[in-house]
């Protein structure tokens, strides 16, 4: 790293704040993956027959697939037989209220700044807490249910709303989609389920908080969000993991369906453990997220702030099927030290008058490698489709990388597609200018970086935006040279 700003380099050394391990009694399967593992997971979850059948089909398909190598990331081969596919904190069979949740678990979430206690929680955010493989608590369920909004763990939804699950599960991300989606379909253990009925505007932000705790455990959660006609929901996702020397795999799937005139806003602040300064440990975050704008005038908006994980591989996408539907992708991805990110989006225009916007901000520091990979496809029938894409990269330090791989495929002569990309660094002149106006070097960097990310941060709900800005500051501390 450069030593041009020694006072800045000295600011380094703020460690990952969520790196603690909790001593929670866990119910785990032995490491390894075979058909019995899949059956055991399904059995533990007391799933109906159709779920097991689907999981097994996914497992057998997965066996025929090879791990993708096209992403601009490098990591040692993952041994899928060394991994634990199911780990759950031991719980009482059914939980009637939060009072029955293991107090140690509640303390974990308190420590993370997420209160599951409804008296103390944020007034307008309902939380589903997922710990290792399973959902441990969901707040505000009853209040939401009174309006017809279903917000519960995926396991609970399988028991209570099997018809919705059977109808929509895998309908956006089929198990054949890719290697990690197939693996997830075979072994996913929990996640969140959301259904917003016709005409309902969900009165509060829905939030899932993911936590990996157990060692050698893969986390495979699956989230399904269905917004019926004229519904609206804003959903937030946060994640942390302990500091461990070995890498852990997180292969999640998120599916969103927006029916006529429905709007779904999905925000992620991803802060999985990124590994240490030498690149040891950290989460492999290999995630498939996709939404389908099935209905006319529907809208799906992804906003992500990716600061954690050793490797991030995700492309939250929108399939714009309904006429006049809208897809959005706003992303800030930070790679510091030895982090690698290959992230972006796919916007598939099928319906008429569909429009999409992509704003991607990549920040590379240390030895970090940051790639934007995106696809904009305008199908022959997508008359009057519009896309605007802007990819900006900010480089801090002379050993990092910023890459842009946009694919643009246009098959309709009424389409307007525009793509722009820029690369810049935090200039010594910019820093000096801010310092001359009285800002400390640290504040100056934060100011410039937040300015760089402004178009994305303003898409986040207020509480998240503040957290995201702070997180960015922590992630980049000491990285300016």
């Amino acid at each position, binding site marked *: 790293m450069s030593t041009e700003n020694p006072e800045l380099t000295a600011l380094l050394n703020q460690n990952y704040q969520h790196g603690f391990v909790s001593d929670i009694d866990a119910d785990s399967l032995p490491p390894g993956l075979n058909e019995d593992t899949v059956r055991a997971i399904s059995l533990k979850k007391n799933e109906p027959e159709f779920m097991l059948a689907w999981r097994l089909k996914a497992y057998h398909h997965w066996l025929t697939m090879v791990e993708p190598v096209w992403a601009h990331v490098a990591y040692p081969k993952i041994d899928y037989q060394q991994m634990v596919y199911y780990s759950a904190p031991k719980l009482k069979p059914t939980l009637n209220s939060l009072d029955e949740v293991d107090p140690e678990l509640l303390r974990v979430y308190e420590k993370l700044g997420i209160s599951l206690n409804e008296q103390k929680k944020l007034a307008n955010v309902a939380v589903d807490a997922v710990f290792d493989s399973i959902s441990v608590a969901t707040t505000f369920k009853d209040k939401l249910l009174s309006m017809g909004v279903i917000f519960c763990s995926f396991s609970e939804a399988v028991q209570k709303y099997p018809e919705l699950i059977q109808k929509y599960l895998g309908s956006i991300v089929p198990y054949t989609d890719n290697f990690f989606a197939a693996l997830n379909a075979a072994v996913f253990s929990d996640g969140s389920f959301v259904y917003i009925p016709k005409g309902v505007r969900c009165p509060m932000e829905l939030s899932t908080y993911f936590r990996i705790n157990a060692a050698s455990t893969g986390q495979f959660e699956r989230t399904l969000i269905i917004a019926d006609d004229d519904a609206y929901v804003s959903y937030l996702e946060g994640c942390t993991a302990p500091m461990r020397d070995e890498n852990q795999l997180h292969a999640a799937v998120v599916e969103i369906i927006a029916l006529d005139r429905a709007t779904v806003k999905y925000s992620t602040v991803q802060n999985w453990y990124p590994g240490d300064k030498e690149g040891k440990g950290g989460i492999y975050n290999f995630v498939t997220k996709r939404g389908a704008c099935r209905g006319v005038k529907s809208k799906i908006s992804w906003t992500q702030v990716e600061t954690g994980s050793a490797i991030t591989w995700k492309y939250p996408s929108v399939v714009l099927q309904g006429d006049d539907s809208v897809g959005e992708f706003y992303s800030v991805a930070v790679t510091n030290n030895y982090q690698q990110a290959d992230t972006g989006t796919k916007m598939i225009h099928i319906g008429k008058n569909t429009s999409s916007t992509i704003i991607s901000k990549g920040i590379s520091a240390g030895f970090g490698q940051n790639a934007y990979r995106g696809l904009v496809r305008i199908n022959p029938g997508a008359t009057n489709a519009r896309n605007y894409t802007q990819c900006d990269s900010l480089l801090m330090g002379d050993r990092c990388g910023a890459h842009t791989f946009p694919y643009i495929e246009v098959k309709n002569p009424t389409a307007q597609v525009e793509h722009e990309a820029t690369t810049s660094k935090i200039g010594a002149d910019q820093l000096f200018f801010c310092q*001359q*106006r*009285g800002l*400390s070097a640290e*504040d100056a960097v934060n*100011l410039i970086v*937040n*300015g*760089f*990310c402004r178009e994305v941060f303003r898409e986040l709900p207020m509480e998240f935006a503040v957290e995201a800005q702070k997180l960015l500051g922590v992630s980049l501390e000491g990285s300016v040279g």
Partner: protein
Amino acid sequence: MLTIKDLHASVDNKAILQGLNLTIKPGEVHAIMGPNGSGKSTLGNVLAGREGYEVSGSVTYHNQDLLSLAPELRAQAGLFLAFQYPIEIPGVSNVYLLKAALNAKRKAQGLPEVDAMDFLSSVKEKIKAVDLDQDFLYRSVNEGFSGGEKKRNEILQMLILEPSLIILDETDSGLDIDALKVVADGVNSLRSPDRSFIVITHYQRLLDYIVPDFVHVLANGKIVASGGKELALKLEDQGYGWLDNA
């Protein structure tokens, strides 16, 4: 206010300032003139604390050792450099920078943060003085501004921050006569018995509008001649050549 003794500065072993001495008392306006390459801008940069110079000598500012302070501490102590080439900062709005800078200064003085409403009305008042539209407050700092707009934006920052020592680094370069008047009016409105100015310029023209108490000629990194404002007129008339024979 400011005492500079035997100031040397070099870049990559190339000497630029070579023993500069200057004393500035509260309320005074000093013009620094000189040919290109004489070290005028270096003086402003070294006083403001820009990195990349090897500096020796002493500079005392309000009884503090100025050279030992980080750039932001100098700024918080009331030193303001109006840049010759103001920098662009995409995504950071002008009004945000103004507020952050003002609060940094207030914090250093042990004052509470400025009241948002008071601040906004004060800014809106002062932006009129530099003849910029209100929209400029919400645009990114200097991004897409014309040369003249950038310079006026520097003056706006100066008016908000109310510094005690102001260094204008060739603020007149690239300005038409109307913009020059706006800049000069802004500067003159801040002239007071406890505030001092260093006006760095190549041309006498600016000094018709900002009338200096002293004029110094910088050549080869030293002050080679000092006098009153009539010295500037002589330079205008005869150029810098006569100094070589002086």
